[in-house]
């Protein structure tokens, strides 16, 4: 078993695969409000992302064990799945936001302290390393169930890495 396989086996995405695909670049570059990026590469019995999707962009599952498949044309970047997913595996990446070197990431958050709008936070990659500073644009609680969705402005060249934030102490 290679180091890369071991890394994936410990819960770190190492390459794109079914259930963890990226949107087509051309559509992504121009889609206002962003597109969903899901990182759910294992077939497990779970479907709330699809059943909560208001536009049907996350295609209804044939089998509850299906990994999510997405019709990106239909995705409106609403982040409902971000708040709903029990595995915290849904993110929205908006490449149209801000300046040319910026982008917006919407990610789930269930820790303390809760980020405050307008402040700077550490942006963490998939192994928890602080790889950039980000600015908190919004913090919402779409389902009123204490899972927050943090909208954070990040350096555009880091949108593929940043999957969590931490309040700077």
């Amino acid at each position, binding site marked *: 078993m290679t180091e890369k396989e071991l890394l994936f086996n410990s819960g770190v995405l190492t390459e794109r695969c079914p259930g963890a695909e990226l949107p087509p670049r051309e559509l992504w570059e121009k889609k206002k409000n962003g597109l969903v990026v899901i990182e759910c590469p294992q077939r497990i019995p779970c479907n709330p992302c699809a059943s909560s999707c208001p536009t049907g962009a996350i295609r209804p599952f044939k089998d509850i064990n299906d990994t999510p498949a997405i019709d990106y044309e239909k995705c409106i970047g609403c982040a409902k799945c971000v708040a709903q997913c029990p595995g915290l595996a849904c993110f929205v990446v908006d490449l149209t936001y801000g300046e040319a070197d910026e982008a917006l990431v919407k990610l789930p958050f269930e820790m303390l302290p809760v980020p405050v709008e307008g402040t700077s936070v550490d942006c963490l990659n998939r192994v928890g390393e602080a790889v950039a500073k980000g600015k908190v644009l919004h913090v919402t609680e779409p389902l009123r*169930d204490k899972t927050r969705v943090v909208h954070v402005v990040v350096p555009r060249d880091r949108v593929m890495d940043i999957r969590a934030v931490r309040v700077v102490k």
Partner: protein
Amino acid sequence: MRETEVLVIGGGPAGLSAAVEAASHGCDVTLVDSDLALGGQLVKQTHKFFGSEAEYAGTRGIKIAKILFEELEAAKDRVTVLSNTTANGFYPDDGVVALVKDEEEYIRLRPKKTIVATGAMERLLPFPNNDAPGVYGAGAIQTLMNVYGVFPGERVLMIGAGNIGLIVSYQLMQAGVEIAGIVEFMPKVGGYWVHAAKVRRLGVPIYLRHTITDAIVEKGVVAGAHIQRVDEKGRPTEEIRKIDCDTICMAVGLIPTAEILWQAGCKMTYVPELCGHVPQRNAFMQTTNPNFWVAGDASGIEEASAAMVEGRISGISIARALGRIQGEAFQERYLELWQRLSNLRAGEVGAKIRSGLEKCSNCGCDWGEEA
């Protein structure tokens, strides 16, 4: 001597579901639970459940417990709840179950039918100082911090990367406790990959192919641990690492709690995939003792979502055995429940469960009643 139509032993996800299902069809139910309050492990789960909407997917365990409590409250005319009550033994001669309530009161209860939903017990690994204060079971840690709001420690080493190890690590971080790392003997996490990703991105190391060699003890309590890398055949290597921690959390699996089933003479089979001795059962969750049903982890270690459906299946099947529901009404509900259970077990992660069930299920209705 008290009597009851249906005795449900265990008030966790399986027992609660069984009790409300049986009561909803008109059965009189006595629900006993050994803990101070009902809910079993459900009341400790701050994470959202998987599954489909019918299994409350996307809803936190604590909220699911509330939903079941509301159902129980609505059925209170039919359900007697005895908490802090342990079912200590079953006496086949007269069909009496001996209960001890509040450590004081001895109650003899004779049920017509019994559902055993006694859940499971924590496993422990053998290693030096595994008995030291500070080595705690994962369920115990959840009880301390999520039910009573007490810090189990300041820095915890998690042993085991199954769903419990991964989820409890995440819950510890929510409570503000540091995780020193998660140790897993196998070359991949045993729990859902997304649960691992959740803690990895918050900086928690997962040491695959590692094992704990000993707990370091100072002044009588845990002050650290040594972990050791194993090779691809599971043999120890020279690579040993010292971990600073004041608590070691054991999440290395569960064993079904089956004493009552043994006492009831149910035919028991050792099924490794289901983590211990489990009763033979038919498609109604009825055991080889025609008055005993089983549901949840007592029938084999599985997820709480499956336990809730199994509870419902045993509840409605008992209602049928008591003549409270029959024909199409039964068929429709029963088949819907069975379909839900099959869906939960359909995928790759359900393969182990399916293979285990083949060794202890008899769907040919050799005993019990026919559908």
